[in-house]
């Protein structure tokens, strides 16, 4: 059944973390800066300022590479709580002006403005109000590129075409002409690997992609071929999904300060991560029925990482689990069963899945009762004094610093 045409806005904050730092500190304005993790020397550039981008610095580049390309770059350790607050602030503006809001990442959101704007002129007015309110409520240095179109695919591509502070409208009927002005990789969903695959088929433009039959695309890309077929014609998802849905998993990963061989070191970081995941499960009223663990090696081997999946029958929990220590015991056994002890570990991660909601069953065993009471007391301390309120004695020398990541903020997780 055909659905009514929707009007979607994609707002993409320009050089987001770097712009927030430049807003807070005028001394950084007009200069090439790179926002990094807490340790600038073993980190990547999470966001480059527009000045740094002009000089060739790219997001996710190692800091040593950025320094090599741009020796004058100022590396600023990220401040996720600051960015989190500004993210809340601009999403509150978006929420005021839209029927539905989807947080696509920490610095990108989709707004369904079909009802509030009524038509494309109204959508342009909404975009202008967004720009004014961003200036007034977040600061003059914090800007967004805005794309308006009938679906999320086109709106996002539109916002990408004019940075910074751009406003691009793809009017109904102009979709194909707009797509023909885009590169293949301007579409969210076509990455370098797909582009190379398409190039082998003789396809280097979206116009050429439209000439490929659906059968060929399905044969080459399986079900993803159908998405490519539709995307080349400007067809895509127009449903803006709110934040109401429960998460499918709760996870956390961490790059170690130094590559590590010693099981004791790896165990400590993993336990710290499991405690964080356990706290988040309990805070949000979830229990996990499965767990998977992940490591990445630090040596330059072709196989850089391994995921150990505990969601299979033998590693699935019979009862839901929300305790960090219980998660750790399974996660560590998964890692130990597949880890190559001769290779150094750079990153360790855990994900708790198959989440269920429900009250905790009271154990009949005194030891488990005592543990549960202690965990409840620690949770009260965490709520009252924050996540640094307590730590295990064994983890005193293993601090886990907050990341400045692209998809979520640790302190909100």
């Amino acid at each position, binding site marked *: 059944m055909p659905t009514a045409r929707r009007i979607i806005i994609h707002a993409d904050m320009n050089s987001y973390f770097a712009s927030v730092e430049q807003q807070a500190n*005028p*001394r950084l304005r007009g200069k090439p800066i790179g926002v990094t993790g807490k340790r600038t020397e073993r980190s990547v550039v999470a966001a480059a300022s527009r000045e740094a981008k002009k000089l060739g610095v790219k997001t996710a580049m190692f800091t040593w590479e950025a320094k090599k390309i741009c020796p004058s770059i100022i590396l600023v350790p990220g401040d996720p*709580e*600051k960015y989190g*607050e500004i993210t809340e602030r601009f999403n509150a503006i978006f929420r005021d002006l839209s029927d539905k809001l989807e947080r696509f990442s920490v610095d990108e959101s989709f707004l369904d403005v079909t009802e509030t704007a009524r038509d494309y002129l109204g959508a342009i007015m909404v975009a202008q109000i967004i720009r004014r309110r961003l200036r007034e409520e977040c600061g003059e240095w914090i800007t967004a590129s805005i794309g308006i179109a009938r679906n999320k695919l086109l709106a996002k591509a539109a916002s990408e075409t004019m940075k910074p502070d751009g406003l691009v409208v793809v009017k109904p009927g102009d979709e194909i002409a707009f797509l023909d002005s885009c590169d293949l990789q301007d579409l969210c969903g076509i990455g370098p690997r797909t582009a190379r695959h398409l190039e082998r088929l003789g396809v280097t433009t979206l116009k050429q992609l439209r000439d490929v039959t659906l059968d060929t695309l399905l044969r080459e890309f399986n079900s993803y071929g159908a998405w490519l077929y539709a995307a080349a014609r400007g067809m895509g998802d127009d449903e803006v999904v709110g934040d109401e849905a429960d998460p499918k998993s709760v996870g956390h990963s961490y790059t170690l300060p130094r590559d590590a061989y010693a099981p004791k070191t790896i165990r400590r970081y993993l336990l710290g991560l499991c405690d964080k995941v356990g706290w988040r499960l309990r805070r949000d009223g979830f229990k996990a029925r499965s767990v998977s663990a992940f490591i990445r090696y630090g040596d330059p081997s072709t196989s850089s990482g391994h995921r150990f999946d505990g969601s299979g029958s033998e590693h699935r929990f019979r009862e839901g689990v929300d305790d960090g220590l219980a998660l750790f015991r399974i996660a560590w056994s998964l890692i130990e069963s597949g880890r190559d002890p001769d290779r150094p570990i750079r990153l360790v991660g855990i994900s708790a899945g198959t989440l269920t909601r429900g009250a905790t069953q009271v154990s009949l065993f005194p030891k488990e009762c005592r543990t549960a009471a202690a965990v409840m007391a620690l949770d009260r301390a*965490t709520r*009252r*004094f*924050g996540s640094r309120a307590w730590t295990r004695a064994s983890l005193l020398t293993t601090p886990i610093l907050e990341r400045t990541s692209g998809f979520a903020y640790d302190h909100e997780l």
Partner: protein
Amino acid sequence: MHETCDDPIDVVVSFTDGRVTPRRLRWRGREYAVERVNLIHATNEGERRVFYFSVSDRNHDFKLRLDTEALQWKMVELYADG
């Protein structure tokens, strides 16, 4: 010059439209007039709400911390020429 610190300071503020705006501050025996408020953001330390004010006078950029429970201001960061 960039300096991080944790020094208690005196701050004169205005309360307007439910907003707190630093106007003058005294730090290490010197007084500074706040000319611009660049950014205000807040964090939660457990139940405690802490505000950070990034402000500037003519020659310096400061980051001030206001603990709303202890009602205490601190200088936590300073940028200056030279």
